[in-house]
């Protein structure tokens, strides 16, 4: 019954929440309504998380047929879906706990928790779906619920939600096209039947099917040419929601990619879908992944809004997952899947920290913040841990997955992809430095003199995620062993795991040793710093303006317009990139076609009469002429 519970709890949460919202309208009694919603949300998501953890044993065993929506839908729990389900339910619970305090104005987002339930329902449905039709239906449910969740914000997030909707509907319709293609070439939507049939197909049909089905996955994962919807949609949501969205929502696309490459259509599909060594679905995916790593990461460098900067990184980190999984090597898949977890942990941690800052200062604008380290030390530490993970530096978890991915890329003979991964890491380091510096280091603007640390309701989730990021950095084996199980269940070679990393047979990695060395090095340098006695305290405004006359209108501050010089050089290519222009030109073509076709309706009734006569003549000639 576990699968049923996993699906019905969020569904009940959604419907019950709607009913509650109708019975206790937020406009009349915001406090009661908010309290009820919060209670239901915490209870519901806690139940879900416990249930998800408890169902691990049923992975690969249990499958059910549910009559949802009057349709027989097939669901099954596999090792792969369990991994993602645990992440979805876990991070949703943490986000909800964080939002209890972090979501400032409950009256403003009356249906936030309700749509969170709906969205979770859609995501769990996609993860559990066990035939292509169920997958598609749940996919559509998930997309629409994401749209409504994004709608729960201000005017800008509504506009961003609109642009998400266009991408989501394009994705959904492409998936439907793929579903129809498979249905009419195989005659079934069952994955077993599809795998069997695909094994006997030529490269052409399999490539068409895979392309039609992978495009929506890549759109959802915000892979390079289709990533433009993400930054505005996520950055304009309330920060708690953006943490959740960036951490896991996008990664359903990665799940779909993994699933269709290695599970749903059989293991052989990736080998069939290639024209030659260089032109294959796998190689194309890796190139897409490389672009996704590099371009958005460097775009992030020039963002002046903390949330927007992080959303660009969220796209870029997706590139690592794509190249890792598409390399289809043991290490690569393990690295890619592990990176999903790591990214979830540190990106939510960073966004929680940003939310804590925003909660007190009311802004996420990097040009206006600064020097908050002593005011909000927990948030600072949270962001520090997070960006170490994000940049892939030991001792945090991000290092492990990136190490696996680099190794896989080099061993599988993709030096250029590996190079772009390293270039992207460089961009990551540069931009996370900007992030933490402009928020917590440097000068404290006077208006933030009264800023305090946030309450425990927000502090605890930050501390918890810090622990997760570091713990999985020291003991990556806890997660990697789950991934090894996934690989076994898929019939792939499983990664050899130790508690602290990877066994010597697969290139030794021991994070405990690295941690000890790292901390020792830190201690030594701290001691040297103390011993040298170079410390000197300078006042906040004791700085040097090189003879400039400064007044209040000129923000003459090291923080202001960080990387302005680089922006001057690289900016033009990144602010209006070809992708954006391409998107705009498609919009322009559609709008132009609309304008043009609309002129057919001239308003002149004699023209309309002429259409009728002309239609009669044309149809007569067309049908009569053939004989």
């Amino acid at each position: 019954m576990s699968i049923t519970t996993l699906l019905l709890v969020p569904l009940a949460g959604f419907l019950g929440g709607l009913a509650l919202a109708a019975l206790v309208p937020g406009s009349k009694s915001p406090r009661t309504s908010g309290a009820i919603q919060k209670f239901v949300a915490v209870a519901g998501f806690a139940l879900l998380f416990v249930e998800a953890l408890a169902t691990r044993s049923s992975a690969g065993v249990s499958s059910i047929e549910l009559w949802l929506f009057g349709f027989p839908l097939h669901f099954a729990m596999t090792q792969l879906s369990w991994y993602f389900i645990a992440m979805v339910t876990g991070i949703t619970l943490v986000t909800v706990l964080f939002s209890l305090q972090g979501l400032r104005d409950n009256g403003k987002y009356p249906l936030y928790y309700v749509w969170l339930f709906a969205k979770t329902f859609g995501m769990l449905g996609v993860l559990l779906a066990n035939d292509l039709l169920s997958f598609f239906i749940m996919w559509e449910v998930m997309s629409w619920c994401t749209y409504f969740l994004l709608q729960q914000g201000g005017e800008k997030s509504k506009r961003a939600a609109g642009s998400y909707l266009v991408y989501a509907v394009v994705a959904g319709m492409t998936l439907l096209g793929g579903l129809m293609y498979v249905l009419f070439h195989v005659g079934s939507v069952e994955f077993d039947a599809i795998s069997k049939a695909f094994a006997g197909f030529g490269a052409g049909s399999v490539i068409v099917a895979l392309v039609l089905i992978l495009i929506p996955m890549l759109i959802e994962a915000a892979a390079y040419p289709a990533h433009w919807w993400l930054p505005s949609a996520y950055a304009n949501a309330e920060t708690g929601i953006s943490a959740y969205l960036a951490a896991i929502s996008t990664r359903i696309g990665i799940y779909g990619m993994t699933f269709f490459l290695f599970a749903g259509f059989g293991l052989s599909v990736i080998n069939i879908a290639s024209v030659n060594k260089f032109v294959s679905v796998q190689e194309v995916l890796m190139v897409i992944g490389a672009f996704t790593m590099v371009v958005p990461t460097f775009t992030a460098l020039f963002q002046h809004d903390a949330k927007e900067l992080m959303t660009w990184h969220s796209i870029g980190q997706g590139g690592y997952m794509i190249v890792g999984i598409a390399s289809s090597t043991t290490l690569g898949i393990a690295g890619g899947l592990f990176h999903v977890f790591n990214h979830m942990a540190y990106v939510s941690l960073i966004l929680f920290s940003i939310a804590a800052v925003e909660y007190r200062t009311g802004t996420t604008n990097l040009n206006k913040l600064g020097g908050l380290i002593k005011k909000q030390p927990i948030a600072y530490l949270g962001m520090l841990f997070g960006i170490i993970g994000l940049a892939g530096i030991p001792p945090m978890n991000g290092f492990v997955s990136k190490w696996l991915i680099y190794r896989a890329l080099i061993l599988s003979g993709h030096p250029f992809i590996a190079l772009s991964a390293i270039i992207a890491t460089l961009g990551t380091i540069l931009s996370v430095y900007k992030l933490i510096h402009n928020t917590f280091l440097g000068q404290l603007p006077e208006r933030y003199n009264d800023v305090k640390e946030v309450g425990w309701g927000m502090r605890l989730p930050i501390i918890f995620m810090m622990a997760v990021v570091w713990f999985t950095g020291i003991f990556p084996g806890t997660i990697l062993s789950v991934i090894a199980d996934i690989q076994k269940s898929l019939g792939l070679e499983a990664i050899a795991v130790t508690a602290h990393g990877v066994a010597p047979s697969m290139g030794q990695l021991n994070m405990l040793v690295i941690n000890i060395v790292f901390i020792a090095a830190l201690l030594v340098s701290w001691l040297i710093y103390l011993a040298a006695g170079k410390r000197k305290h300078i006042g906040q405004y004791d700085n040097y303006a090189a003879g400039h006359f400064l007044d209040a209108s000129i923000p003459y501050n090291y923080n202001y317009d960080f990387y302005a010089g680089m922006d001057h050089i690289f900016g033009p290519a990144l602010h209006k990139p070809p992708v954006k222009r391409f998107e705009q030109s498609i919009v322009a073509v559609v709008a132009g076609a609309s304008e043009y076709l609309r002129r057919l309706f001239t308003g002149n009734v004699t023209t309309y009469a002429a259409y009728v006569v002309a239609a009669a003549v044309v149809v007569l000639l067309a049908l009569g002429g053939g004989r």
Partner: protein
Amino acid sequence: MISVSAVLYTTSIILILLGLYGALTRKNLIRTVISLDVIDLGVNIFLITIGYIKDGRAPIYVVGSGSLSDQAARMADPLPQSLVLTAIVIGFGVTAVALTLIMRLYEKRKTVEVSETRGLKW
């Protein structure tokens, strides 16, 4: 010799085409409606002609002047005639409604020009 029905068919086709031409080219709504009536007229003549029989008589059975089948062979087909009656009534109704609407529009807009009746377009 040209048969009556050929003349009638030709007339009706000419009238229909003439009406269509009028409906497509006239710039005045009332003329457009008149053109529609011309089309109607042509169609009605066409329908009548279908039931035409040379030297036919009214489709009334007269007791005592031959058998039913004999009489029927010489009768004009009554069905098209009844159709035409209905069609005339419908045409009348449509024309009345059309002129009323045009009149009302004229009261508001002081024009019956087709090219100026383009408030709704695109």
